[in-house]
């Protein structure tokens, strides 16, 4: 399907990632004419390889710091420096192309943490404007549409599910078995990791062949349930959806009546094109969505489109995760198979006895690919080069695994996305300037969880445990919170259906909607929100409200 830009389609969607793919499919399946503008290329399975240098070292499927620089500072009192503080997937399929595919639902408690914990001074800690029960059917639909493998009932801390996972869990790896061993000794409850990867053939796609190249890579086998392999082809099959790659949105167009009328983008040849539409859905992620709105300011919205609240770009939350590595006596060969096969959520909920806000989840996983392992995977007491180094490579690589702990990042207005006043990208647009630093509780929680990770590995019989806990933010790959949802138009950017409070035919649907960060792994929730928002858009459009 191809539309002319001058044609007024029903919806133009910016970004073909985790959320954008879902929205495109839902809207087109409901009979609407949809154009999806994606700044990145349209890659196919045959384009993917196991090239560790391109995909891991150069993060070849993510935003390119040379073309689209990001600047970073820890507070507004510091000058921002050129630093890739955030990474996201930049192609049709977005971050779901190269994600590790951990597919965790949030818990009932996540949506009401503010009520149960109380206020936290200096933060924008709040309840969500919806509950787990509102999202449950959408989680279930997302799991069915994508193809998610897991074992319902295996995690005693899960919130209620309306049904089983569509596919049985992936086979456990040695890292998962050892994690099980250690955790059970401590009376904990590890369970098979829910993943957006096929354990069996599903909807015409083949099962995973356990090649091991999941995180940072695209899946050649279409076994990873990215939106590229699932809902985007479904959208295109409707005959009503055009996915337009290499189309970089630079401004949302607004008419005098206060409604948006389309999106101006740079095409592959860097010409500016206006795609007209009756409604606009921005799914460009937790950093690019606020950036695009900030770049779309008007006389009516001098501080950024749809920003009457002043909250646009604020409350950016970080991917707070830390890995502990360890080595066992015998080879695990953890490079084979998917990244993580076991998860544990015993420590998920907050507990005032700990003295800080937060809880944690963790997963047992493969650490680093061969060359990355040589560069930084060995324990600090091993020589960095020479004969001993070489010997250590051979001994450690097959015997090493890690536990990654995932803990929250509190929403604070001082952590935000703004337009850099000086640095421009290759198209002449202002760079995203990230201002971020942890809340004291973020650090306390990560440290506490870190000790729990070590306890489990020691209980499992690890011969040596090592790692480094960063107290300064490094790079975040979970971009959450910059267009938060809420009932009150004075303190939030969108309502509980991801609709702009200010502009009725403008929807912002992606990780930016998050009110809190739960225990990370945001993608399942991003997609559940996208299904819910799509349903609302379809109803509103049918009623003629958009």
């Amino acid at each position, binding site marked *: 399907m191809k539309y002319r830009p001058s044609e007024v389609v029903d919806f133009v969607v910016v970004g073909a990632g985790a959320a954008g793919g879902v929205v495109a499919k839902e809207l087109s399946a409901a009979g609407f004419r949809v154009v999806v503008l994606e700044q990145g290329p349209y890659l196919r399975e045959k384009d993917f390889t196991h090239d560790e*240098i391109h995909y891991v070292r150069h993060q070849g499927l993510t935003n390119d710091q040379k073309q689209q620089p990001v600047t970073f500072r820890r507070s507004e009192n510091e000058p921002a420096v050129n630093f890739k503080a955030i990474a996201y997937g930049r192609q049709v399929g977005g971050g779901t192309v190269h994600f590790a595919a951990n597919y965790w639902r949030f818990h009932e408690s996540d949506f009401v943490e503010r009520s149960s914990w109380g206020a936290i001074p200096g933060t924008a800690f709040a309840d969500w404007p919806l509950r787990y029960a509102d999202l449950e059917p959408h989680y279930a639909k997302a799991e069915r549409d994508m193809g998610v493998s897991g074992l319902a009932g295996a995690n005693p801390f899960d919130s209620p599910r309306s049904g089983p996972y569509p596919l049985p869990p992936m086979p456990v790896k040695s890292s998962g078995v050892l994690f099980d061993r250690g955790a059970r000794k401590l009376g904990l409850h590890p369970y098979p990791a829910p993943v957006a990867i096929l354990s069996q053939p599903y909807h015409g796609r083949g099962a995973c062949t356990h090649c091991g190249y999941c995180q940072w890579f695209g899946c050649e086998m279409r076994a990873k349930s990215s939106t590229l392999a699932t809902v985007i082809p479904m959208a295109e099959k409707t005959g009503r959806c055009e996915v337009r790659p290499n189309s970089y949105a630079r401004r949302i167009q607004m008419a005098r009546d206060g409604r948006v009328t389309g999106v101006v983008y740079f095409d592959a040849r860097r010409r500016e094109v206006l795609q007209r539409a009756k409604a606009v859905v921005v799914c460009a992620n937790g950093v690019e969505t606020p950036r695009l709105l900030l770049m779309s300011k008007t006389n009516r919205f001098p501080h950024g489109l749809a920003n009457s609240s002043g909250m646009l770009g604020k409350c950016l939350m970080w991917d707070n995760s830390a890995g502990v590595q360890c080595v*066992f006596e015998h080879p695990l060969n953890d490079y084979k*198979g998917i990244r993580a096969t076991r998860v544990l959520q015993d420590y998920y909920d907050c507990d005032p006895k700990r003295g800080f806000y937060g809880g944690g989840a963790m997963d047992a996983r493969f650490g680093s690919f061969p060359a990355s392992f040589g560069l930084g995977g060995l324990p600090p007491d091993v020589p960095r080069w020479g004969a001993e180094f070489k010997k250590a490579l051979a001994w450690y690589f097959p015997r090493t695994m890690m536990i990654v702990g995932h803990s929250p990042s509190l929403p604070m207005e001082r952590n935000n996305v703004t337009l850099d006043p000086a640095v421009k990208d290759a198209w002449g647009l202002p760079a995203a300037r990230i201002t971020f630093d942890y809340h004291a509780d973020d650090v306390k929680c990560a440290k506490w969880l870190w000790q729990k990770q070590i306890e489990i590995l020691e209980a499992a019989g690890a011969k040596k445990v090592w790692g480094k806990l960063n107290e300064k933010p490094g790079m975040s790959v979970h971009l959450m919170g910059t267009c938060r949802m809420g009932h009150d138009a004075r303190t939030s950017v969108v309502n509980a259906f991801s609709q702009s409070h200010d502009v009725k035919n403008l929807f912002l649907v992606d990780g930016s909607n998050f009110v809190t960060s739960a225990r990370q792994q945001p993608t399942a929730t991003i997609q559940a929100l996208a299904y819910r928002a799509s349903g609302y858009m379809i109803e509103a459009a049918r009623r003629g409200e958009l």
Partner: protein
Amino acid sequence: MSISRRDLALGLMGLASAEELAAAWQHAHDAAAGGTKLEYLSAADASEIEALVSQIIPSDDTPGAKEAGAVYFIDRALASWDRGQREVYRAGLADLQQRRRAAFPLSASIAGLASEQAVALLQGIETTPFFEALRTHTILGFSGPPSYGGNRGKVGWTHIGVEDKMIFEPPFGYYDAEGTR
């Protein structure tokens, strides 16, 4: 694809000139199968760099950075995707040659040094950007993707027990059997 015993012996004794060694080195490598043309480095510099990478991941009873072709990896990196490191190499190598002449006045080249001498030389620059670049490239050239000119015959992967396959079947590791589910 190794330099002949005689060349090596000459080198170790410091008798061969740097040019002679480089020529012998180039000859030995050309004779090996495929992909030995240099795109950026001179044969003389390549010979010196190979001597250095051979200390970072030495060849002992199993292949090291040298057999993996790490120097070709470096040559191609500097010729293409890692051009930005050229100056680090140029300045770093010049500095290292100076250090060599100061420490081992009788030597003619790094490749001609005894192993302990080369190690001592490298220990002196361990915290420099040149060493960091060299170490990074050596490791990438040892166990990175073979399509970049290194990891020849997949020796780097073999060394760490990695099979290059698209399809694996569980059990993957020693402990899998202990699993209940």
